[in-house]
């Protein structure tokens, strides 16, 4: 293996292995980042993770299922440091799938400055998320608040009758964020 040709053949072989492996390293580094959009797509397709997204439900005529009653619970939380008071006006409702309901959340700006906030919804249990359809929601838009302003913000929703039968309680949770620290 000490001859000149075998030495240069070896160097070529080594270079080829290194090149391929470095390519694999770069590809896996990129794959790590690609997981971020892939994860979102997967959650949207499957409705996993309670992500209801910002999508507006298509209002189509459905039969109201009077025989079934589902409890909907409303939860509100503030992201750390968001200077609001934020709470649901009603904490639980008994609803029939297929019927429209409206409820409101109350928010009050605790500062003497103008603030912009955004509510991010989440539905539990996860499999119920895509059957919880919001027709109108304050979470679709940014919410501007004058200093000290208090406001009731509506959400109109309908529970799809195709909600899995084992689900008896659905929890709708909003987390309110101050938009500056959301990075956009």
């Amino acid at each position: 293996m000490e001859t000149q040709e075998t030495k240069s053949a070896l160097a070529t072989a080594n270079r080829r292995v290194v090149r391929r492996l470095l390519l694999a390293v770069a590809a896996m580094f990129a794959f790590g980042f690609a997981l971020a959009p892939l994860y979102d797509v997967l959650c949207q397709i499957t409705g996993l993770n309670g992500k209801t997204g910002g999508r507006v439900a298509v209002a189509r005529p459905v039969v109201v299922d009077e025989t079934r009653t589902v409890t909907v619970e409303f939860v509100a939380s503030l992201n750390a440091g968001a200077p609001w008071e934020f709470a649901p006006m009603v904490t639980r409702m008994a609803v029939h799938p297929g019927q429209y309901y409206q409820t409101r959340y109350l928010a009050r700006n605790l500062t003497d400055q103008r603030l912009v906030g955004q509510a991010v919804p989440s539905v539990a249990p996860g499999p119920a998320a895509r059957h919880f359809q919001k027709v109108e929601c304050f979470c679709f838009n940014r919410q501007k608040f004058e200093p000290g302003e208090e406001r009731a913000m509506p959400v109109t929703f309908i529970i799809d009758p195709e909600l899995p039968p084992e689900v008896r309680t659905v929890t709708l949770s909003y987390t309110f964020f101050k938009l500056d620290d959301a990075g956009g």
Partner: protein
Amino acid sequence: MSIAAAPALHHEHDTHAGPPRGLGRWLFTTNHKDIGTLYLLFSLMMFFVGGSFALVIRAELFQPGLQIVDPHLFNQLTTLHALVMIFGAVMPAFVGLANWQVPIMIGAPDMALPRMNNWSFWILPFAFALLLSTLFLPGGGPAGGWTLYPPLALQTGQAFPFVILAIHMMGISSIMGAINVIATILNLRAPGMILMKMPLFVWTWLITAFLLIAVMPVLAGAVTMLLADKFFGTSFFNAAGGGDPVMFQHIFWFFGHPEVYIMILPAFGIISQIIPTFARKPLFGYASMVYATASIAFLSFIVWAHHMFTVGMPLAGELFFMYSTMLIAVPTGVKVFNWVSTMWRGSMTFETPMLFAIAFVILFTIGGFSGLMLAIAPADFQYHDTYFVVAHFHYVLVPGAVFSIMAGVYYWLPKWTGHMIDERLGRLHFWLSVVGVNVLFFPQHFLGLAGMPRRIPDYALQFTEFNMISSIGAFLFGFSQLLFLYNVIQTIRGGEPATDQVWEGARGLEWTLPSPTPYHTFTKAPVVE
């Protein structure tokens, strides 16, 4: 690779056969044996650093209440104990063993890329200086656990960029080491050394190196995203900006689970070298060992979410990850059965390396069984984040990975130094370690089943007795390791001269070399029958 070597060229090698003198030898060395030694010594040092963190933790947990450290320092110590032991002790030890052994086991003159080899070692001391320096920063070191889950990890103070940079450096070092191992094994095997004739230590390292190439960049990506979330206003893991903290767990464990096998596959290789030697029989089921290793490596990519059964996955996900995890027991079982069959009706003797290897087989299997219990998704809701998990992974990592490293060092040290180890001291070290490690970790199973959470500096009174027993075991195990240090130093300095074969039943290319191994070996490739 021809064996028709020109004799004239060999004289050139003989003239610079010895190593240069002084510090420069170690700083600028490209010799695989020197670099292997550096890796092993560094890893030994980190083993004692990480071990002293663990002893502070166990001293605090000796009784309920807060006695020795405040909770914030306690959290820093748990985090750093894990990072130091994983990236500083276990992984570099395996790379060190690979550096020493892979070339002399396949008949290569050195690693394929010797300069890169030097670089991949010398990054490590800087990475760990950076990591450990965070203990002295205002606000202290990282305290959110080695898994770095956001948003908790993002609350780390000034230490945060130091930790991320240190992890990047460790990753680069590992990736370069892995590239080197693969290039060496693929290109530098002696004529006749076909893949299916390679010693199992070489096989397991080849597969481990591919795992490293596949997942270390993913970890680098994950920590880079954390860095961006903290300093550049992105929202990968920030729900306020449309991100999701759970996504970090998915990305992290996509790295983390193969990482677990990175820390155990080379151990399988070492044990597969040692048991045939002292059972004086060839390894039972060589080919099945190779395929089992490859299957474990493949399965490691599709089981990651069993670390996060409680995050609220859908039923289908829980079932998939539960069954795929249980599937790993099959190739692992093949390995355990093969080791036992190798010993079956062998002419066994119980020198120190063999004692550690047998303890590995038994105790690693206990760790594997508790892993199976954790794989049962509905049961995991009870075990999750308790001391049961701590007991499980310490059983596979301490009497698993660490015992295999010690077995390997005791096994090959006579070859490297030319001196036999002090057998009596080695056996004393073994018995103290094996008793210590079980007294240390076995009670933690009971603590976990009774509901004691992990990573907490204080606990409810009913956990006191088992915690005391565990702490006593910890100090017994910890201080016994000084015997290992003493024995290694004494063997390097002198001792009964070792023969070339060292152990009566040893087979393979490395045992055809003189003891101690000359500075340059196999400059003329041997021919394997």
